[in-house]
């Protein structure tokens, strides 16, 4: 299975796929924006402010998903001793962090017209802020430590500890009484959003996922070239 993480194979695939993914991302994003801003109906309670959901919710989903993936791969680094996993986690972090910040900022903007405040220290918002801090610590650990081995170890520990926060983010709205509304889209229970709003939400999620993939591939490519640059010095 680990052969799939062969750097040279990945480098070839990346360079072939990148432009197609970029074109797909732009197309899906344009369709998503048109659906979200023009075609989708206003909410009966929150009126047009509910349209913020189309950038807020996918960002929160993807930032949480990426951190979970980083944490699982960090476990893999300790178990399989595969340094490629470290390269993958390092390349995933920038887009995950950006989506975390987008979720926090757009959530804050959405909070003003619906709750009457930009910020509240409720469980969901605070745990999302904690997630951003874990992302920041993960990214900084790669910048602070010059020694690659140390950076891999510290960043992996940060990701594994941060994984404790993931279920807290997910279930905070069920465990505590929060200002933040409970999940409206459920895999196991009935979804409480009408399809006219669910479709744009999924299209925007697809666009954001494609953007994450694009950034991941470009960052991974950069990291591989960095390694090969060091290799040329040693020739």
């Amino acid at each position, binding site marked *: 299975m680990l052969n799939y993480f062969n*750097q*040279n194979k990945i*480098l*070839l695939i990346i*360079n072939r796929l990148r432009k197609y993914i970029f074109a797909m991302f732009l197309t899906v994003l344009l369709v998503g*924006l048109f659906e979200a*801003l*023009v075609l989708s109906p*206003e909410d009966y309670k929150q*009126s*047009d*402010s509910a*349209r*913020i959901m189309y*950038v*807020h919710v996918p*960002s929160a989903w993807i930032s949480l998903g990426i951190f979970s993936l980083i944490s699982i791969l960090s476990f893999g680094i300790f178990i399989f001793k595969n340094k490629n996993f470290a390269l993958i986690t390092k390349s995933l972090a*920038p*887009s995950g962090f*950006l989506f975390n*910040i*987008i979720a926090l*900022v*757009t959530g804050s*903007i*959405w909070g*003003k*017209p619906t709750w009457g405040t930009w910020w509240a220290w409720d469980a969901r918002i605070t745990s999302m802020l904690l997630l951003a801090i874990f992302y920041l610590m993960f990214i900084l650990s790669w910048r602070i430590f010059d020694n690659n081995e140390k950076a891999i170890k510290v960043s992996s520990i940060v990701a594994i500890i941060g994984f404790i926060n993931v279920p807290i983010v997910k279930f905070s709205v069920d465990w505590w009484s929060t200002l933040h509304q409970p999940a409206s889209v459920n895999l196991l229970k009935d979804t409480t959003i009408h399809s006219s709003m669910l479709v744009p939400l999924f299209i925007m999620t697809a666009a954001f996922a494609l*953007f994450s993939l*694009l*950034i991941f591939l*470009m*960052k991974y*490519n*950069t990291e*591989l*070239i*960095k390694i*090969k*640059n060091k*290799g*040329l*010095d040693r*020739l």
Partner: protein
Amino acid sequence: MINEILFMNGYGVYVWSSFIFTLSGFFILYSVIKLQLIKEQKKFNAKYENLSSEKFELAKKQKTYRELLPNTSISKI
């Protein structure tokens, strides 16, 4: 129609600022990562061009460099 989309029943400023913040974030991150990639590729090209003929032959034999070079502007291989 255009007014409706712009003002959104008084929520336009919140909705548009959220979308503009998101798209600006995309643009900034994409630009930063793209610049980093170009910088590393340029560094690689410069190093590769300055290799002695001995080291050049050595690099040519290595699979990793053969696969990297078609993606750069160097056409030695």
